[in-house]
């Protein structure tokens, strides 16, 4: 059973929240919010790879967890501090994770390392970076792999996955540089990043297509330096593209090679292609000319609209959830401070007691103080739970981000196809014009005819490219479709789990404190009775 599968344990701080540029401020404040909730323990002290996943099945499965006996708060508090424990009940989500490629993934041991080719003259000022130990165990294998990776490697992995899995909902990686990181202490930042990276890898492994992929395996298992070639080496690509541009402009290289169309036009190599596709999209949008191929899949368009609505409500819900968490936290805190103030009063009255009535009063205030402190603790425990469950909302906001990317993949693939098709159309019309002009010249026009031949060659090549692009587009469409299907299923499951968890924890908390207050109510009922008597 995957150890880190459970609704990702937010308690360790959500670095991911920072990466969602498109999300509202809500996401950014989440991190700080959770950081404060998380401040009660240090994720770095949590269990390291050395402790194998022994928790296995969570003690109380949903079916058997009786209403009277919820998991004790001590248990939850302890387990939630370790990202490795399945801190939620055996949920469908964990069941989903059970059939996974990897039975164990962890990121740990952040350690500074120096850049190898340090050219600094001053010793000790060579640029350093942090590397993390990534440990994993593949299903069916006993061997535990451990490799060192730095953040840059994760970025490379993410980029490669984005290329290889177009149309899929690829989990977004933790952000590079957050505003928070400027304000935060180094250690805190590193701790948050570590937890975020771990969560990222776990989500990747949960993905039905990415989990078993080679890219992922190589990342996890290949020792030494990260072997995945960085295909997003922007600098070289820029140079590459700049070098090709003159040739493109001169008309010598007008066709995108078939394999190129399998990728969207990116900066650098495909400047011309970018210009063309941009023109195409402008034509499609502004001039109102119907592009040769349109997104006709009605079902898809409906789904897209629904998802937009969903995302909107999700955003608002997650904002309210944060406000709720804050209010709960404040309540717990104030109840605690009240309890403390009453304890001080109790102590004072006890020490200074000159009258019997004072001692009685001190005993009363002690009872109330104790109850208040208990209630405060229970409230704070509840809040940890609430954070954990309602975090599902934030999770899904993250998923929406990958949905957008997947839809963009589809749109850009479509654009590529459309561009090629209008290329073909214009090439065809050029041929027709040339042929018509050539006919008018007696004896033929050798240069024009030669040009026509060239153009026909170009058309053939463009046709090939178009076929490739069309295949790619269909592939991406299919990916979209199956992912949407998967998302629908998983979303329902996740939301239901979230509600169940939230409601259960609220009920358990309330029951716990009913008891402690009712006891005090009973103990002080004499005063009420006397008041009633006198009133009568």
């Amino acid at each position, binding site marked *: 059973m995957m150890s880190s599968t459970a609704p990702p344990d937010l308690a360790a701080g959500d670095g991911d929240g920072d990466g969602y540029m498109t999300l509202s401020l809500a996401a950014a404040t989440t991190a700080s919010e959770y950081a404060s909730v998380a401040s009660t323990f240090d994720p770095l002290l949590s269990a390291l790879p050395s402790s194998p996943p022994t928790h296995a099945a969570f003690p109380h499965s949903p079916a058997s967890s009786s209403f009277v006996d919820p998991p004790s708060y001590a248990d939850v508090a302890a387990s939630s501090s370790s990202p490795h424990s399945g801190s939620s009940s055996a949920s469908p989500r964990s069941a989903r994770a059970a059939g996974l490629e990897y039975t164990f993934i962890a990121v740990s041991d952040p350690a500074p390392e120096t850049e190898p080719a340090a050219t600094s003259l001053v010793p000790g000022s060579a640029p350093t970076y942090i590397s993390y130990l990534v440990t994993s165990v593949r299903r069916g294998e006993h061997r535990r792999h451990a490799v060192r990776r730095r953040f840059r490697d994760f970025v490379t992995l993410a980029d490669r996955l984005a290329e290889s899995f177009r149309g899929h909902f690829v989990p977004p990686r933790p952000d590079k540089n957050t505003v928070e990181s400027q304000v935060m202490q180094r250690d805190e930042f590193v701790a948050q990043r570590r937890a975020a990276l771990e969560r990222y890898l776990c989500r990747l492994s949960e993905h039905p297509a990415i989990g078993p992929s080679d890219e992922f395996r190589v990342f996890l298992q290949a020792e030494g330096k990260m072997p995945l070639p960085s295909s997003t080496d922007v600098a070289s690509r820029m140079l590459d593209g700049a070098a090709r541009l003159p040739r493109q402009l001169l008309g010598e290289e007008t066709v995108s090679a078939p394999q190129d169309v399998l990728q969207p036009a990116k900066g650098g190599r495909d400047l011309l292609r970018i210009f063309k596709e941009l023109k195409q999209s402008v034509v499609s949008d502004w001039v109102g000319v119907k592009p040769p191929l349109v997104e006709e899949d009605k079902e898809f368009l409906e789904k897209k609209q629904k998802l937009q609505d969903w995302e909107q409500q999700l955003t608002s819900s997650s904002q309210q959830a944060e406000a709720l968490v804050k209010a709960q936290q404040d309540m717990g805190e104030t109840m605690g401070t009240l309890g403390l103030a009453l304890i001080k009063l109790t102590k004072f009255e006890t020490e200074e007691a000159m009258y019997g009535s004072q001692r009685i009063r001190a005993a009363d205030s002690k009872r109330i103080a104790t109850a208040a402190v208990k209630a405060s603790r229970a409230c704070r425990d509840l809040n940890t739970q609430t954070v954990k469950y309602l975090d599902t909302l934030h999770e899904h906001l993250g998923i929406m981000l990958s949905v957008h990317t997947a839809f963009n993949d589809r749109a850009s693939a479509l654009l590529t196809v459309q561009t090629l098709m209008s290329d073909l159309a214009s090439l065809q019309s050029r041929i027709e014009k040339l042929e018509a002009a050539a006919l008018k010249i007696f004896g033929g026009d050798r240069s024009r005819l030669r040009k026509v031949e060239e153009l026909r060659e170009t058309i053939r090549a463009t046709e090939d490219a178009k076929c490739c692009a069309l295949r790619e587009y269909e592939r991406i469409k299919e990916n979209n479709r199956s992912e949407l299907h998967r998302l629908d299923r998983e979303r329902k499951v996740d939301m239901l789990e979230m509600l169940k968890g939230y409601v259960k924890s609220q009920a358990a908390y309330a029951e716990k404190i009913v008891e402690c207050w009712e006891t005090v109510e009973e103990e002080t*009922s004499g005063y009420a009775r*006397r008041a009633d008597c006198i*009133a009568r």
Partner: protein
Amino acid sequence: MISTERSQSQSPRSPTAAGAPFLTISVTDPVKMGTGVQSYISYRVITKTNLPEFEGQEKIVIRRYSDFEWLHDRLAEKYKGIFIPPLPEKNAVEKFRFSKEFIEMRCQALDLFVNRIASHPELKQTEDFRIFLQADEEKMDRARSYETGIFKKPSDFLQMFKDVQSKVSDVVLGKEKPVEESTPEYEKLKNYIFELENHLAEAQKQAFRLVKRHRELGQSLADFGKAIKLLGACEGDSLEKVFSEVGSKSEMLSVKLQREADNLLFHFEEPLKDYVRSVQSIKATMVDRANAFRQHFDLDQERKYKELNLEKLKFMNPEKFSETEVEFRELKADSEEATKRFEHIVAVMEEELARFQEQKTADIGLAFHEFAKGQAKLAKDIADAWRSVLPKLEACSTS
């Protein structure tokens, strides 16, 4: 003797046995009078009694805050040593002054004020109290303005320099550094009272914050409930239903939280505030005691000094002697008077303290009880609400 608890409701109470003496008072029906800057709140004061000193079985008068203040100040002036029941705060932030909550709390506090006077063995028999309860509005107005308008007697000046300033004025008038009563028990009592106020003020502050937290949590629960409902609407079918349930319960609990906030305010925070006020009233009495002590001490010193001189004069200047002797006898009378006043205050304070401690235990005990009761009920409502939703959630199977 346990004092009468404040009248919880404004309903009339019947005597336990026919003929047994009773005196029940209620302050009720706050009504805004006047307009603009001149406006104020008037209260109905209903007195039901069979005591002969009062005119008739039932009397209803209209009073405003300054009338209560008049009564308080008159009693404080005349009955030194007694802890005069405290009044609710005089001033309030302008916009808050006519808020429903504020008016209700003030009314409750004023009711408590008169009832405490009514159950104090000495205070309830005072003329001032009877005037307050029975005088018609005109007479009351006159009495009140008389008090505030007329030039104060010298003894009133002393009254006015009640706190720190009295020490300053003594120094200014050329007296030595102030002398204070300093028996170990009284020292202990002074420290106790001052520290008690601090502890209580802190507790009251937290209680007030707790009220606010309830309101905030209530608000955020309501907002959350709404958002969850809308979220569920996106999902459709069975999931939408459970989302809607959860949302509705949240909204319902939000209302309960607001109610508990009100309950906390009236039955827990206000009694704590009242406790603080009572302690402040004791501090005022302590100032009176300090003043009385100083008077007694000064006159006593003067007497001793004059007595010695008198002895000398007897032999040295027999003519002057008889004059001086008359003066001396007056001084001696004054000194004895001052000493008696001081000792009276000390004795009264003893009794009052015992009474105070008992009364407070009962008052605060009740407040604690209400607090626990309210929290228990709220928690129970929360538990019930969520338990009722759980089966529906469990039943909602995922495909």
